[in-house]
Every structure is written in C-alpha cells, then in structure tokens.
C-alpha cells in the first residue's frame, strides 16, 4: 500500500495541520506577551461569543450598570490579567491536545501505509486518541472570562467530541480484535 495516494495525502494533511498548530501556538504566545506590553494596540480586538459549537450550552453574562452595551465590555484590551493567563493556558492546552491527536492519527495512517495495520501500536494509538479528545472536550466545555466591567461564563456539553471519544474507544476494541485475528492467521501454517 506504499503507492496509495489517499494515504499519502492524509499524511501530508496531518503534517500541514501540525505545522499550523505550532504556528497557532506561536501566534497565541506573541499576542499573550504583547497584550501585557502594550494593551492599547488591541483597542479594536473584540470577542465574539455568538459562535455555536453544536451542543447544549448555558451562558451567563454580567456587566456594570454604568455600561450600556456588552460589545463595549468584551474587548481584548479590557480583559482581566487572571482571565488572560487562564485563557492562555487553556488555549495552549487545547492546541497541545489537538497536536497530539493529529500525531496519533498520523501514526495510524503511517502504519496502514506500511501494511502493519493490525498491530498493538494502533490499539494504543486509538485509546490515546480517545483520551486526548476527552481532554479536548473537557477543556472546551467551560470557560469563564472576566473583563474590567463585566464578564461571561459558558458551560456546554460538546456532543461531537464526546461522540468521537466513543468512536475512538470502539475503534481501539475493533483493532484489538483485528490483532488477535492476525496473530491467529500468522500462526496458521
């Protein structure tokens, strides 16, 4: 299967994705550092909390009575320092977990390319993938951001990642069965 175009493309996409995640982390770190040096540079940077991640969510917003509109509060330069650090760590965690997910998936695809599909390594990879997606689901399920004149917190149940967790563990079990069948086939003379 070394000449399979689909597998080659998937591995290439995984490599691009890994590079993109590394650049995202670097960009995030630059913004994080620069925000502490010169807050005024981010005067126009606002948060958009209207995005729907495809799950049930509970949003709680609050603001000072003196402020008329929420859009005046949710600005990047008005974020509280503790919230900034918390957000940076959380986003870093998400990027790291996504990087590890792509790495594990890439490992599985490479093993398929080398015609070593049913190996114990792939069973472990799918289990790890399940754990990483579970961590991702946990990290993205809740956020709390405090601004100078208000804040927002959101709690949601991310169905898609949770479904992927289930799928990963099921795939691990299927591959485990495959490994047993392969071992039996290898020992049939």
């Amino acid at each position, binding site marked *: 299967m070394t000449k399979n175009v689909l597998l080659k493309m998937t591995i290439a996409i995984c490599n691009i994705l890994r590079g993109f995640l590394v650049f995202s982390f670097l960009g995030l770190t630059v913004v994080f550092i620069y925000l502490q040096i010169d807050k005024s540079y981010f005067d126009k940077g606002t948060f958009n909390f209207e995005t729907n991640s495809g799950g049930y969510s509970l949003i709680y917003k609050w603001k000072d009575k003196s402020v008329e509109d929420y859009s005046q509060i949710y600005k990047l330069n008005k974020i509280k320092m503790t919230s900034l650090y918390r957000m940076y760590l959380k986003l870093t965690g998400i990027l790291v977990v996504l990087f590890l997910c792509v790495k594990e998936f890439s490992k599985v695809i490479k093993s398929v390319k080398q015609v070593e599909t049913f190996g114990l390594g792939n069973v472990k990879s799918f289990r790890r993938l399940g754990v990483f997606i579970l961590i991702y689901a946990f990290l993205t399920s809740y956020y709390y951001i405090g601004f100078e004149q208000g804040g927002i917190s959101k709690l949601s149940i991310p169905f898609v990642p949770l479904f992927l967790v289930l799928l990963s563990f099921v795939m691990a079990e299927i591959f485990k069965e495959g490994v047993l069948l392969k071992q*039996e086939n290898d*020992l*049939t*003379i």
Partner: protein
Amino acid sequence: MSIVVNLDVVLAQRKIKSKDLAEIIGITEANLSILKSGKAKAIRFSTLEAICKALECQPSDILEYVED
C-alpha cells in the same frame, strides 16, 4: 499442549532436511519451524496434504493427541 507435532521424528526417519521439506511444500523455513516447535495455532489441510505427500506418510504420523 494436547496435540504434539512429530514432524521432527518423521523427517529424521525419512532423512529429509527441514529446509528441503519447506521448499517442496512451498512454505518458509520460519513457518515450518513454528509448526515443528508446536507454536502453531492451526494447520491448513493443504499444508498437511503437502507434508503427507512429500514424506509419504499419514496425518497421524505427524500429529498425535496426548492427554495433559
């Protein structure tokens, strides 16, 4: 193990080397070694047939049931 493979004995009686048998029946030496050592989980009828034909013997000469 309950099933004992007596391939070594038959090979010695026929004075045939493992390497030659592997070549005749068309399997690798590594696989023949697995079969001889008793590590094999199963044996195909086609392999058994080829071994019997090459060694001019019966399956019972090669396989033996021993109670644990």
